Structures are given as structure tokens and as C-alpha cells.
């Protein structure tokens, strides 16, 4: 017992949290595939160079919890992470705080809230201080931590659903901006949809998957096919409209409140 007390003190004093205002550390044992796809802020940075997005008009209403099942909650968590990133682009601290509350609810449903309770105040603080760069870093670090903890709970099949939730919401935003600007920045490459579809490969066999996963796979395959057939300017605009509509409808369905 005495040794355990000393060990507790030692651990507590030698792993002091970073100075306030600096992002916390992150999980450094990420699989190689995690750099394979751009982060959502990377897409946002790219579209901002070619268009003038009105970020606050791109917010999406979030559903009331509880959700139907854990797979659904994981996907919605990804959507909410993206929502906070959109708020960071809009430099809207209040919306970041609101999104963080919804993120906390999702983390609770997934059994991750207790382990990650230190990250959320940091996100609030970065929003308060208008430190948007650190906020973006912290939100990505939060997603990585979620994946690490899910793996520890033997729930790693949920990890790709978080990433997909964030990517699909990001796609939704980029398609909406593309419709306005007439340029499908970053989302016109069929390989992008193929890479998203590959994330679903980590999930259980089709019979055990949540129903929305099959719909998502169908959506991604359709978009991959559609963009691979685009050759002319007219068909590109048409495909952009198809993408925006299909992704928007999918998210509308998935974000419906539980019955």
C-alpha cells in the first residue's frame, strides 16, 4: 500500500499537464493509414483559397440524444467534431461550446467521457482565447484518443465510423461551398471516395453492420462512380449538384432524432 501511495505521487508529479494555452499531447502510436486522408481543416483551408465560404450558414442542426445504437453514436460523434471545426473556421466560440456539449453527450454514450474529460475544457479554453489553430489540433487529438480508447474497450470497429462521420460532414460542407463557387475543390477525385469506402473495410461483415453503414457504402460507391465518369465542365457541375444533394440527404436521415 505504501509503495502504491508513493507511486501515485510520483506519477502525479512527473506527468504534469501542459501549460495552459498549449495543446495537450496526443497518441503517438497511430496507424500509418491515418495520414492517408486529409484532415477536415485541410479541406477547409483549401476551399477558403478558392471561395469565400460563409461558415455560419453551413452549420447543421444536431440531433437530440439518445441515439439508436453505438455505431450511430460513433458516426454522429464524427459529425459533431466536424461541426466544431466549422465553428472554428467561423471563429464562433459560442458554437464551439455548444458543439462540445453535444460531443460530451456522445462520448458518454460511448463510455469515453470519463477518460477524456480533460480534453474538453482545453477545447473550451482555446475557443475562449480565439486560439483556433490549437483548437483544430486539439479536436484531431481528441479523435485519435477516442480511437485509442475504443481499441482498449475492444470496440475498435467503431473508430472508422467516427472518421467517416467527420469526413462525410466535411464533404457536405465542401460540396455546398463548391455549388456556390462552381468549383469542387478536393472532392472531385474518385480516389477520395474509394479511400473513404476502404475505411468501412475495418467494420464487421455486412450482416452485423448497422443499416446506415450499407447506405453509406452505397453512397460512396455511387459518388466514386459518378466522379470517375466526369470529363466535361457541364457534367462536373452536374456531379457536384448530385454530390451535394446525396450527401445532404444522407446526413438528414442519419441526424434524425431517435424515435
Amino acid at each position, binding site marked *: 500500500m505504501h509503495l502504491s501511495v508513493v507511486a501515485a505521487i510520483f506519477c502525479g508529479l512527473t506527468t504534469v499537464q501542459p501549460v495552459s494555452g498549449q495543446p495537450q499531447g496526443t497518441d503517438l502510436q497511430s496507424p500509418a493509414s491515418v495520414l492517408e486522408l486529409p484532415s477536415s481543416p485541410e479541406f477547409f483551408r483549401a476551399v477558403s483559397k478558392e471561395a469565400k465560404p460563409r461558415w455560419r450558414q453551413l452549420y447543421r442542426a444536431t440531433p437530440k440524444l439518445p441515439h439508436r445504437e453505438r455505431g450511430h453514436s460513433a458516426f454522429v460523434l464524427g459529425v459533431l467534431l466536424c461541426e466544431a471545426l466549422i465553428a472554428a473556421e467561423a471563429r464562433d466560440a459560442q458554437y464551439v461550446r455548444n458543439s462540445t456539449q453535444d460531443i460530451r453527450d456522445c462520448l458518454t454514450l460511448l463510455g469515453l467521457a470519463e477518460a477524456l474529460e480533460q480534453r474538453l475544457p482545453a477545447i473550451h479554453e482555446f475557443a475562449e482565447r480565439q486560439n483556433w489553430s490549437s483548437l483544430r489540433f486539439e479536436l484531431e487529438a481528441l479523435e485519435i484518443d477516442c480511437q485509442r480508447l475504443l481499441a482498449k474497450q475492444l470496440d475498435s470497429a467503431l473508430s472508422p465510423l467516427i472518421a467517416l462521420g467527420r469526413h462525410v460532414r466535411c464533404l457536405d460542407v465542401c460540396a455546398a461551398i463548391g455549388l456556390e463557387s462552381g468549383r469542387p475543390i*478536393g472532392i472531385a477525385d474518385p480516389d477520395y471516395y474509394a479511400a473513404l469506402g476502404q475505411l468501412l473495410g475495418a467494420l464487421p461483415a455486412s450482416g452485423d453492420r448497422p443499416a446506415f453503414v450499407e447506405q453509406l457504402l452505397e453512397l460512396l460507391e455511387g459518388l466514386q462512380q459518378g466522379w470517375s465518369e466526369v470529363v466535361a465542365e457541364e457534367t462536373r457541375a452536374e456531379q457536384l449538384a448530385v454530390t451535394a444533394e446525396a450527401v445532404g440527404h444522407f446526413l438528414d436521415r442519419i441526424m434524425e432524432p431517435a424515435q
Partner: protein
Amino acid sequence: MSGRLHNNRMRRGCPACLLPLLMLAWLAPRLPAEQPVATASAVAVLHAARTLAGEGYERRATIVEHSLPAGESVDLPIFLLLQNTYCFLLASSETDDALSFAVCDDDGNVVADGSYLPLKKNLHLFYLQPDLSGRHRLRIVNLGDAAARVSLTYCYR
């Protein structure tokens, strides 16, 4: 060394000795049960990324770590966006000249290589403005005689 406590009062659990320790334990920051352990090369790229953040770059929180046996190479897939400028940060446990780093297109043809800047010992920066959006590969070759542990991340703006 047995690692045992040699102070008899402490070993017997004297309350006067334990009280300050218990208070310290209570005051110590509460942490998750398991904190990830960072390797030296990963810490090096994290610090370098933080420096780049002061120059208007955004950091990725993700760091890829890879063990690379002597004489072997690895291709890491990555999706680049034409509109962004990238700065790759590569740190290794081996000496500066033991590693070669290149960016390839999806077919494996080298797009840019050899121009990375030694920032400090075993840490390199590699700037890239891609010509095309899409899938690329980051090729790291270990030219040295010993296995190398490589940490990689990137910043963008």
C-alpha cells in the same frame, strides 16, 4: 537494490509520515489511467511542428511512427490538396544521411525528393507545393546499416 523502503517508520505506515504524502497524492493532477509514451523522434517532430505553427502553418495531431530495417523502404499513402502548401517533418533515430525521403505520385513516380532541409540533428523539413490534388506516397528509404525508427507528420497552409 531491492527497491524496498528502508525507513522503518515509513515501512510500518506511520500516520505522521503518510499524511503529507496522501495530501500530495490528492493534490496531484488527475490523469487518465494510461498516458501514451512519446518516443524521442516523435517529440522532436511535435516540437518542430509547434515552431511552424508560428509561421502560419496548421499542425496535424497525427504522427506516424515506423521501424525501418537497414536497407529497406516504406511507402506511406497520403492525399494532398493542390491548394495547400505542405511541410513534412521527419525525425529518425539514425544519423542525418542514413535516410532518403521522397514524395511520389500514386504510380510510384518520384515527384519531389532530396531537397529536405536538416533543421537539427536527425530532424528534417521537406516543403512541397503539389501540382495535383490526389493520392501520393511518401517514400522513406533507410540507407544506413542499422534499423531506424522514423516519426513523420506534416503541417500545411
